[in-house]
């Protein structure tokens, strides 16, 4: 199933349900779509849904491929949003990633072509 289409067609409350799916791919796709919507129409509730999902234990422990976790994808989704609240949230969430997990997050962001504009990341 094409998860991009499925999440694009979903209303905001349904995206919230997708974040609770047992499918880690659907949770990751919902994070992408929330990021897309926040870039065009900022919404505090959606931002909270995304940041709560990044914090969620199973998202931090579930590897999508290689060392990349669902939570890393959530951080990538946050990093793409050009809004000060999203930036603040990204920076505050950085502290939950430690040691190898933090290095893996930085590696993933760079692998996806995110230029690192956060000095906190460069010195991590």
């Amino acid at each position: 199933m094409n998860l991009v289409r499925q999440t694009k067609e979903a209303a905001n409350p349904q995206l919230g349900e997708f974040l609770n799916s047992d499918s880690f791919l659907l949770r990751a796709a919902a994070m992408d779509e929330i990021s897309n919507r926040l870039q065009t129409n900022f919404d505090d509730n959606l931002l909270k849904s995304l940041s709560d999902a990044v914090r969620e234990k199973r998202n931090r422990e579930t590897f999508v491929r290689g060392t990349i976790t669902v939570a890393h994808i959530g951080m990538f989704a946050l990093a793409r949003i050009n809004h000060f609240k999203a930036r603040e949230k990204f920076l505050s969430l950085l502290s939950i990633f430690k040691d190898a997990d933090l290095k893996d997050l930085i590696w993933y962001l760079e692998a996806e072509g995110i230029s690192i504009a956060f000095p906190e990341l460069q010195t991590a």
Partner: protein
Amino acid sequence: MWNKFLTTNDPAREKYGAAKNSHPEEYKNILKILRENEVDIDQSRPMMAYSPAKNRAGRFILDPQASLAALRHEFKHFLDDKAAGYPGLKFYREDDDKFWKMEFWAFAEELKFARQQKDYDLARKIVKLMRERKAEIFGR
């Protein structure tokens, strides 16, 4: 919960040992291919994983104690990623059927190893891991 190839997810390791000892030629050859393709090889932790990157080869986390079956699994992910032109993780995760297909073919490499050894107990353990991974992908 899927924790990649930690010891518990490398069922061939206990019986057949590390690939570098059991199949040194194939082990060396795989590492040679990875290096020739400028794959970033990280041997700093006890796990096996291949993380795709965008527009370049990804990163291969290599546990020197991993079995040949586990090595072939991750190497298959690299080969498939290279064949696809290094499109980045998003390309793979946009479609659950496509994602599962790639996992299936990587697990098939492990099953091939079990068949070569005529080790049907190992094959059953691999199939169990496949089912767990499939359930996590599709959420059922």
